[in-house]
């Protein structure tokens, strides 16, 4: 019974390998670029699926957390410290290995914070902001929570657009790659196939953590809050704390997606922060089936891939808005939870909360 929950992970890994084999054999590896980007968006989807499907809390501000991750990383890794190289704090950071030196396209020296430091800082900041806004708003329920997170998303969007350090409407470019062991780098200029496997390893690892969580004592507690908050509370579950912790966890996953995609793309712009991006994530989780991590991830990959390929252009936002309305009206259980499909899905017998 424990092995069964990991079978889809193995299936997912095989699908990743198979897709790579097919794309390489047919000389169409350019599709991998969008698959890599979809994978990083998949982290946002996994986090939001935990929050919406398990803890039962809606967030219309997840693009905000994605942006906090991406922009923090981008700002710290592109902030040129060459001018203050001799300042004691820069020297100290340098000795600790927290800054990295590189040259830009024209050969000029750039000294900035190392991408790993920036990534950690981005996650810490996203976690703290999630905690700070979660503390008051998770006392709200239903529509009020949705409205409050929507407001948060709008604020982040306007801050990004209005602040010079975030590049305003242009965003931030020339974000350096995120270096991994063995000379691998997370960046579109680095070898595509390697990047493809890195991205998918990250997503499948996040999936394993999320699956473990939903099958754990905490996962049961979250589902119980979703189904009857009063009963859960009476059984010793600190419902507020659990919702808050899930909100923070979910924000961290969104921020991780933002960090990784920003390093991959080498840039981030305000289009990542729009409210429609948040709506898109909610639509994906809803169509995947609320308490269905695999469904949400699958729909996330499919829809983001199509969107990135430009299939929905210029009606991207229309498509995602339309999906959300259609799901709410006709398939509140999500497309992949429709009874006709469930009978075809081999892992859905009994406890199918993976």
């Amino acid at each position: 019974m424990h092995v069964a929950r990991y079978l889809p992970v193995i299936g997912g890994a095989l699908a990743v390998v198979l897709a790579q084999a097919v794309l390489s054999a047919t000389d169409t590896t350019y599709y991998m670029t969008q698959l890599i980007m979809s994978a990083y968006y998949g982290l946002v989807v996994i986090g939001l699926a935990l929050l919406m499907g398990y803890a039962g809390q809606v967030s219309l501000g997840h693009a905000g957390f994605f942006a906090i991750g991406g922009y923090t990383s981008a700002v710290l890794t592109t902030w040129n410290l060459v001018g203050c190289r001799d300042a004691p704090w820069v020297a100290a950071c340098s000795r600790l290995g927290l800054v990295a030196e590189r040259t830009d396209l024209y050969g000029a020296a750039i000294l900035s914070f190392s991408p790993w430091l920036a990534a950690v800082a981005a996650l810490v900041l996203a976690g703290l902001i999630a905690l700070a806004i979660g503390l008051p708003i998770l006392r709200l329920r239903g529509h009020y929570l949705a409205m409050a997170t929507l407001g948060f998303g709008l604020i982040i969007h306007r801050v990004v657009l209005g602040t010079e350090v975030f590049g305003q409407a242009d965003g931030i470019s020339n974000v350096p790659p995120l270096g991994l062991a063995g000379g691998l780098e997370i960046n579109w200029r680095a070898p595509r196939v390697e990047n493809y496997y890195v991205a998918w390893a990250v997503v499948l690892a996040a999936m394993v953590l999320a699956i473990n969580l939903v099958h754990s004592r905490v996962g049961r507690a979250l589902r119980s809050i979703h189904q009857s908050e009063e009963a859960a509370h009476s059984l010793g579950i600190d419902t507020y704390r659990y919702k808050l912790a899930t909100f923070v966890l979910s924000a961290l996953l969104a921020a991780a997606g933002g960090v990784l995609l920003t390093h991959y793309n080498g840039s981030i712009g305000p289009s990542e922060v729009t409210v429609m991006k948040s709506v898109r994530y909610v639509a994906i989780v809803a169509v995947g089936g609320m308490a269905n991590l695999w469904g949400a991830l699958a729909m996330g990959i499919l829809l983001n891939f199509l969107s990135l390929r430009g299939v929905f252009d210029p009606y991207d936002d229309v498509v995602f808005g339309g999906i959300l309305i259609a799901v709410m009206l006709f398939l509140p259980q999500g497309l992949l939870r429709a009874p006709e499909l469930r009978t075809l899905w081999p892992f859905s017998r009994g406890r199918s909360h993976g």
Partner: protein
Amino acid sequence: MGDCLLETRNLRRSFGGLAAVRDVSFKVERGAIKAVIGPNGAGKTTLFNLIAGTIRPHGGSVFFRGANVTGRRPHAIAALGIARTFQTTKLFPQMTVLENVMVGRHPRTRSGFIAGMLNLPRTWRENREIEARAREVLDDLGLVGLAGQTASNLPFGRQRLVEFARALATEPSLLLLDEPAAGLNIYETRELAALIEAIRDRGVTCLVVEHDMSLVMDISDEVVVLAQGEKIAEGPPRAIQRNADVIRIYLGDS
């Protein structure tokens, strides 16, 4: 009598201008079955919610095992060893019976978010113990055959029993039962009476709110009668049945 497990002192709560509970004081002895009865709107459920921490009192206090627990939140009350059932059964409808009871192990177990995500051997072992203990509780109540059923598919009477099992899984020293006989037929009510006595015999003190006298009079050691938020009588069932005020309230002035 033995020692006092629960005590309320001058407990008071109003909603708007309506005093739902007015200066209610009583004690529950350890190992007893105590009943709170009264006509509809007497404040029974409000009293219960005050003890369970669902709502805060406007005055007075609640003592559990000698400690003042007034105004503590429900999860903290549960962790102290007070479990409850609800007037309208509140199972987790999309979970299995087993999972419902496993949630009841929450206050007696500890794995958090990080342990859950990493599924460390310790976490994994704890989860197995939770499941084993939940099965034991189901077995005790003769429900183990239902373990894999989705809770919402069960008939009403069974759901109530599962709710009992879930509450017992927290290993409470005090069990609060809010109108457990509501909606049950005579046969089921008799079964329920035997079950409550069996629970008491295992050392769990029971406080039962009941609208219907018949169940209460058979099993209770002591009865508190509420009317319009006030305690109007307290004593053994036989004395209560003869109490003129109680008769007047239940049958009306003649």
